């Protein structure tokens, strides 16, 4: 565990020095500019739009970091051959891989946390600036803590995307890894359709293929409760727990597969 922690801290240090956290500035500027513009254009609907925009931005910024840093985590070490010196130290390959994963997760969690704080600050400002009669028409206060549930599931989704990016990067080039990770993410959002696909077509081969993909690719739509959070619809705790369990199981399997491939690999 100690070794994994050291590798993780080093990954975090790298992302800080590679100026990955600059995205936070972009996020904050984007959100503040949007709130100002939307405030000028709409009446009453602006909080809803900002909530939509804020949650979507947190998700997209996180996704970009998870994919584009995730695919390079292992590839860069192998390509630059820095892995030679590292693996000669008392560290197992699985520990190295897990350390890399935890490092990026740490970067992502800090990123999402800062973005969430900025998001709530903008919302708090809007709440304070909006007259009471308009506020009364809102289904929930601007700083509705229920939105944290959506943020929590975004984080979970990012953990899974990172694991998938890391998995592909253990045996593939960054370009292919990025393509495949994005493909899995997109397919994962339409997973439900794949399940029902068999009923609408006559080819048994295509139906079996669709079913196969349905079972292998995680159902990313489960992690998306942004709409419910924005419209103040209930998100049951039981749903959160089951989805978390589902996500954690997937992450564990993907990391296990990555570790198996990585531990057998030759570094030529």
């Amino acid at each position: 565990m100690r070794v994994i922690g050291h590798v993780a801290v080093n990954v975090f240090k790298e992302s800080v020095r590679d100026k990955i956290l600059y995205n936070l500035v972009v996020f904050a500027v984007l959100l503040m500019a949007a709130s100002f513009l939307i405030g000028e254009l709409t009446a009453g609907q602006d909080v809803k739009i900002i909530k939509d925009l804020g949650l979507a931005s947190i998700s997209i910024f996180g996704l970009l970091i998870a994919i584009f840093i995730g695919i390079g985590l292992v590839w860069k070490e192998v390509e630059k051959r820095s892995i030679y010196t590292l693996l000669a130290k008392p560290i197992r390959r699985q520990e190295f891989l897990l350390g890399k994963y935890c490092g990026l997760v740490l970067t992502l969690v800090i990123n999402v946390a800062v973005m969430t704080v900025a998001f709530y600050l903008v919302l708090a400002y809007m709440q304070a600036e909006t007259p009471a009669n308009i506020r009364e028409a809102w289904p929930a206060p601007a700083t509705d803590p229920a939105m944290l549930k959506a943020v929590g599931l975004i984080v979970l989704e990012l953990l899974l995307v990172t694991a998938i990016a890391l998995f592909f990067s253990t045996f593939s080039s960054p370009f292919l890894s990025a393509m495949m990770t994005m493909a899995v993410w997109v397919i994962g959002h339409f997973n439900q359709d794949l399940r029902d696909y068999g009923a609408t077509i006559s080819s048994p081969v295509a139906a079996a293929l669709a079913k196969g993909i349905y079972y292998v690719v995680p159902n990313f739509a489960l992690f998306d409760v942004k709409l419910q959070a924005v419209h103040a619809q209930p998100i049951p705790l039981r749903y959160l727990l089951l989805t978390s369990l589902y996500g954690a199981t997937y992450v564990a399997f993907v990391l296990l597969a990555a570790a198996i491939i990585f531990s057998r690999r030759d570094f030529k």
Partner: protein
Amino acid sequence: MDAIRTEALTKHYTVGFWRPRPYVALDGLTLQVGQGEVFGFLGPNGAGKTTTLKLLMQLIYPTSGHAEILGKPVGDVGVKRRIGYLPEQPYLYDYLTAEELLEYFAALFGFAAAERRRRTAALLDEVGIGAERRLPLRKFSKGMLQRVGIAQALINEPELVFLDEPMSGLDPLGRREIRQLILRLRDRGCTVFFSSHVLADAETLCSRVAILAKGRLVTAGRLSDMVAFKVRGWELVVSGLTDAALRETQARGHVTNVTRLAEGRYALELPLTPPPEETTAALIARGASLVSLTPVRDTLEDFFVRQVSGSTDSRFRETA
């Protein structure tokens, strides 16, 4: 117990996309290195030296054969605590400073913070970059990176250290410092296994060497015992040599070849007999001054050329 033991260690790579064929990078290497030795692992580029080191570090897995380090199979984490490794042209995390890199590696060995700092400071001083310890590695020259690479290999005070081409990228002063460092390691009882394609490095440092060509072990033992590297003559450089003295020496058959270097300065090739002292003394008696006297022997390059030109076998294996 041997420091290193390999038995029929073999590595094939698959080369070619449409018609994949196994390429023999290392072919049945059997080798023993005793503890406390400075062992030179020599061979031309592509001989299989780096492949061997990668197999010993378990960066690649053997196709067949077996290797042990300090009595344990390679890859054992307990063994990794006792060894150090400098890869060829090390690539280090360039976003870290030299100090941060060494402290990071020291942490992987489980040293406490104070101990990490102590070891880092001492090693960076020892390899001569103490003043640049807080500079990011991306600002380092090739030679400075090589020094950091050597320092990281020694962070755990290893019993056995593997150095892959440790002199590469270093200027003459740097090479001398590394030679001295290797000798200091030997004096501390550390086994040093280093690869090189420069015979002079091996001559000054090694108790034993192994020579590899085309993936196969050609010979192993003490360099001075190897027939190929026996002295086969001498090169004598003198100044102030008169034409008369030169003609007289040539007439006696004591000189096999003469090259005029500059005004009155000549390089003379002398046979093994008579001993070079006699010819030198005779020339000095005729007014010449001694500049240098060096033994002539095959270089490692000559040896490699003979080995490589003698064999016609391909390193590609036909698939059945």
